[in-house]
């Protein structure tokens, strides 16, 4: 083993061993000489004699070299140097081959970066398998969000968990010198940093004491990155008071640079104790505020199933111990594996990522076929060279090895370019994914596994693309090869056509996939939400101040004041309150059971509830099908009123006029229906239209609301004005979030945007590679048949006939590829079904687009070289050898 390494060292540093050898041989010879002279020989005689005694100097050196190193490895390096020289001489070939490989391997490395960062990596804690994520299941809903009392009860289950933490991330602003800097901010419980074994880079981290009494410790910890970015890494930041969204917090420490937290794909800039939640709009003791996520560490020796069973056993007791006025009572608590970190992306991104990985594999296959084709063509041109080599006595095995090494050199050079490309592409992908998302930003960086993956991809590519051409070349018949020029055997021509066929087939699959995702995204963008989000700002306004001190109130004067003043702003067309806001992802829902005139009952489950103020429907340009909108008269003192949407009306009062009907509402025993509104989306973009009833905002108990503001012009100016209005007219309230509804919608489309972009990229890449292959084949074919064409033209063939000769070849290949590719694409498209929105997996539009694009591309790619054939001068062609 030791000898192996010594040889390896010699291989890497041959110069040194060689110098040593030189020195030793010289010294040896002089020692012999000296001895001989001592015995009385003349210096000249001694010199000759010493050589004789020593034996052949060069022979000895060779023996020495063989002993100190791996002969074959040295030969390999020699071949590699030889290959580099050879490649250097054909820059065109190298450029095309390298580009194919750089893109083919590059997109693989980029997608693998995501797969690795999101699906494969484990939390950097000891025994990550013990880390679990807690959820609560109530009927068919499973929620990962918790209120603080539930967290407290769960953290007191030593028979199940040894350690429990809760956290709540949000976007906020760090105010420095009056300038807001957007940051990701997280409220965490006292054991948070201990859970991950985190160390401070400076000061100390949040502990249990900081998190005990509500509002008592307005402190925070900075991430290493935030410390560097916003405070220039100045240690004087310790003890300084900073403002997070206008709340002053004292910096007590900086986390170590490697600290990540519960989710490997998210980065936070500032952490504060959950006891400070009241200042940030979440009320810690309130059982109805769902704002925390929970991670726990299973007690040693408790397997997941056992924990699950024990947790189910105590769920009832936990639920009963919680504040009684909660809306979602009776949940069963569950755990699931979180060894790879808290899962807010993983399960949703898993399928798309695997599909993308599949797509890039196809791209790599196309690139491989391209490379194989290039190599075959090159080998055809070098037949004479191979024949000479073989007749000079090089073994076929050595020739095969030389050619394979050449492919490896290409593959690794392409791989290096691919790594650079992948890093850039990954950044672009994350930017696409994160744009429009205001709460979560995905953070993934390449690491050693990505490097290893790329290396493996290079090796596979080189073998896949290089083996057959090298084997073919090594079988060259020396005698025939010496005589003929770059002739192409019929079998090799067949293989080259086969490779093109494979390329076109895969390109069809990739293009069709791209068309499906693009179509799906465009469907999502034009989906009729039931309201018009054009130039609408969604401004969430919530009570400020310590927890519990401000109960829910009906029709607070301050909010009415805000609304009145916002409506007077010159840039505002219309404004109205709702709670919750549409597309914010928040929801309230209830089940309704009403007596039926026929004597039975009619049920509607999961009916969504929204409180809306007068003027909300017109402000959002929603349809009022029948009846009236809420008015200022529908206040706290007036009888309860409701508007139902068409879907709910048809469920509960089919065939009847719902106006004037009564039903029990949210917090109000009896509501009278005064209007029927059109159906609309509530929580997100993809959902089917749900049943909704609206209650009057002025009759509902609220802590705040979402102000929808339709602007006349630029929304940014209006947003500033609205913030100012809230500050002056409603000092007890604050703007907790303000964004355009377009952004709200787009954050539901992040994944679709990413899929559409990537599938289009891969489809384009696969198609371009296939077209390059076609171009190469026709181009080569034209060169090879120059004489034949010369003869054809001289005996009267028209230019059109010649053109057709070559176009026919490429059209046949493209048609063949389509015939093979289309059924394959249709079969594979089934796997995409879940991710598509209102697009059939056999989308005729997609099929048509795919076929037309490929046919047009193939014609262009083959026309250029085919036209060259028509310009052949018959006289020169016939002289040409």
């Amino acid at each position: 083993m030791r000898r192996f390494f010594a040889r390896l060292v010699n291989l890497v540093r041959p110069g040194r061993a060689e110098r040593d050898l030189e020195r030793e041989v010289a010294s040896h010879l002089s020692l012999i000489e000296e001895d001989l002279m001592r015995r009385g020989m003349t210096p000249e005689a001694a010199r000759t004699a010493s050589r004789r005694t020593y034996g052949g100097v060069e022979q000895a050196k060779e023996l020495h070299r063989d002993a100190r190193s791996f002969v074959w490895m040295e030969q390999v390096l020699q071949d590699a140097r030889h290959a580099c020289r050879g490649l250097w001489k054909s820059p065109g070939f190298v450029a095309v081959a390298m580009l194919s490989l750089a893109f083919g391997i590059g997109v693989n490395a980029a997608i693998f970066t995501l797969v690795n960062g999101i699906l494969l990596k484990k939390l950097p804690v000891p025994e990550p398998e013990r880390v679990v994520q807690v959820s609560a299941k109530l009927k068919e809903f499973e929620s990962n969000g918790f209120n603080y009392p539930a967290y407290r009860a769960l953290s007191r289950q030593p028979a199940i968990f040894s350690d429990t933490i809760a956290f709540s991330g949000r976007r906020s602003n760090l105010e420095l010198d009056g300038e807001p800097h957007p940051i990701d901010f997280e409220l965490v419980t006292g054991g948070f940093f201990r859970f991950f074994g985190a160390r401070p880079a400076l000061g100390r981290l949040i502990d249990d004491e900081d998190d005990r009494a509500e509002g008592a410790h307005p402190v925070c910890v900075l991430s290493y990155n935030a410390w560097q970015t916003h405070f220039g890494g100045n240690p004087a930041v310790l003890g300084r008071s900073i403002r997070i969204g206008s709340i002053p917090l004292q910096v007590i420490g900086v986390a170590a640079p490697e600290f990540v937290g519960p989710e490997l794909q998210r980065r936070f800039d500032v952490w504060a104790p959950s006891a400070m939640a009241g200042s940030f709009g979440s009320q810690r003791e309130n059982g109805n505020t769902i704002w925390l996520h929970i991670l726990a560490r299973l007690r040693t020796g408790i397997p997941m199933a056992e924990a699950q069973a024990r947790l189910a056993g105590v769920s009832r007791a936990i639920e009963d111990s919680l504040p009684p006025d909660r809306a979602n009572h009776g949940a069963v608590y569950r755990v699931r594996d979180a060894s790879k970190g808290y899962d807010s992306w993983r399960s949703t991104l898993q399928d798309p990522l695997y599909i993308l990985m599949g797509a890039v594999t196809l791209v790599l296959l196309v690139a491989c076929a391209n490379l194989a084709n290039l190599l075959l063509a090159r080998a055809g041109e070098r037949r004479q060279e191979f024949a000479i080599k073989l007749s000079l006595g090089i073994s076929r095995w050595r020739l095969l090895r030389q050619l394979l090494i050449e492919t490896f050199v290409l593959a690794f050079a392409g791989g290096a370019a691919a790594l650079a490309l992948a890093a850039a592409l990954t950044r672009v992908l994350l930017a696409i994914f994160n744009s429009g998302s205001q709460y979560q930003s995905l953070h993934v960086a390449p690491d050693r596994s990505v490097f290893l993956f790329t290396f493996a991809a290079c090796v596979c590519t080189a073998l896949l693309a290089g083996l057959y051409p090298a084997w073919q070349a090594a079988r060259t018949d020396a005698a025939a090869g010496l005589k003929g020029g770059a002739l192409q055997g019929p079998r090799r021509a067949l293989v080259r056509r086969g490779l093109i066929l494979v390329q076109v087939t895969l390109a069809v699959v990739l293009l069709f996939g791209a068309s499906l995702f693009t179509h799906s995204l465009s469907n999502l963008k034009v989906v009729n939400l039931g309201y018009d989000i054009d130039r609408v700002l969604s401004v969430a306004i919530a009570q400020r101040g310590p927890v519990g001190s401000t109960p829910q109130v009906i029709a607070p004067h301050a909010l009415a004041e805000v609304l009145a003043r916002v409506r007077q702003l010159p840039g505002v067309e219309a404004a109205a309150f709702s709670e919750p806001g549409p597309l914010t992802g928040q929801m309230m829902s209830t089940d309704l059971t009403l007596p039926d005139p026929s004597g039975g009952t009619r049920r509607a489950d999961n009916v969504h509830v929204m409180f809306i103020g007068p003027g909300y429907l017109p402000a959002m340009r929603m349809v009022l099908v029948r009846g009236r909108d809420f008015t200022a008269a529908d206040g706290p003192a007036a009888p309860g009123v409701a508007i139902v949407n068409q879907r709910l009306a048809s469920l509960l009062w089919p065939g009847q006029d719902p106006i004037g009907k009564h039903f029990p509402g949210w917090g109000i025993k009896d509501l009278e229906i005064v209007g029927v509104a059109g159906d609309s989306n509530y929580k997100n973009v993809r959902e089917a239209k749900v049943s909704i009833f609206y209650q009057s905002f002025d009759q509902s108990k609220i802590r705040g609301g979402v102000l929808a503001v339709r602007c006349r012009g630029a929304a940014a100016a209006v947003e500033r004005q609205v913030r100012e209005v809230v500050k002056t007219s409603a000092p007890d309230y604050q703007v907790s979030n303000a964004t355009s509804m377009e952004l709200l919608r787009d954050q539901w489309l992040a994944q679709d945007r990413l899929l559409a972009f990537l599938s289009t990229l891969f489809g384009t890449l696969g198609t371009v590679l296939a077209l390059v292959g076609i171009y190469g084949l026709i181009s080569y074919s034209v060169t090879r048949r120059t004489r034949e064409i010369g003869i054809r033209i001289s005996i009267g063939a028209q230019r059109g006939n010649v053109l057709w000769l070559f176009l026919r070849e490429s059209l046949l290949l493209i048609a063949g590829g389509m015939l093979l590719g289309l059924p394959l694409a249709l079969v594979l498209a089934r796997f995409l079904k879940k991710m598509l929105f209102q697009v059939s997996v056999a989308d005729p539009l997609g099929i048509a687009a795919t076929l037309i694009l490929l046919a047009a591309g193939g014609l262009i790619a083959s026309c250029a070289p085919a036209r060259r054939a028509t310009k052949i001068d018959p006289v020169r062609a016939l002289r040409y050898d």
Partner: protein
Amino acid sequence: MPSEEKPRIQVLQGTLDLIVLRTLETMGPQHAYGIAARLEQISGDLLNLNQGTLYPALVRLEQQARIKGSWKKTESNREARYYAITRAGQKALAEETRRWRRMTEFVDKLLVEES
């Protein structure tokens, strides 16, 4: 002259290592020429050794860490690479010696019985 020479023996495959190690053990650190000279001296010029052929053995032994080479000055103030046997080399020498003894014993026995 050549006719007067006794028939020279070739170094048996695999015994060169043993010979070198043994030489270094008895003589202490020695350069390649010293080893070669010593061998010729002991064998009474029986051993046909191109001195250059010593090198593969020296390299091999050094890579196996059985000997260690370092540049030093000879008495005549020339520089030469001196090889010394290491602890691992001594262990290997003992082992090789034992194996050699067994081998020769066996061959001797064979030759006695055959004759």
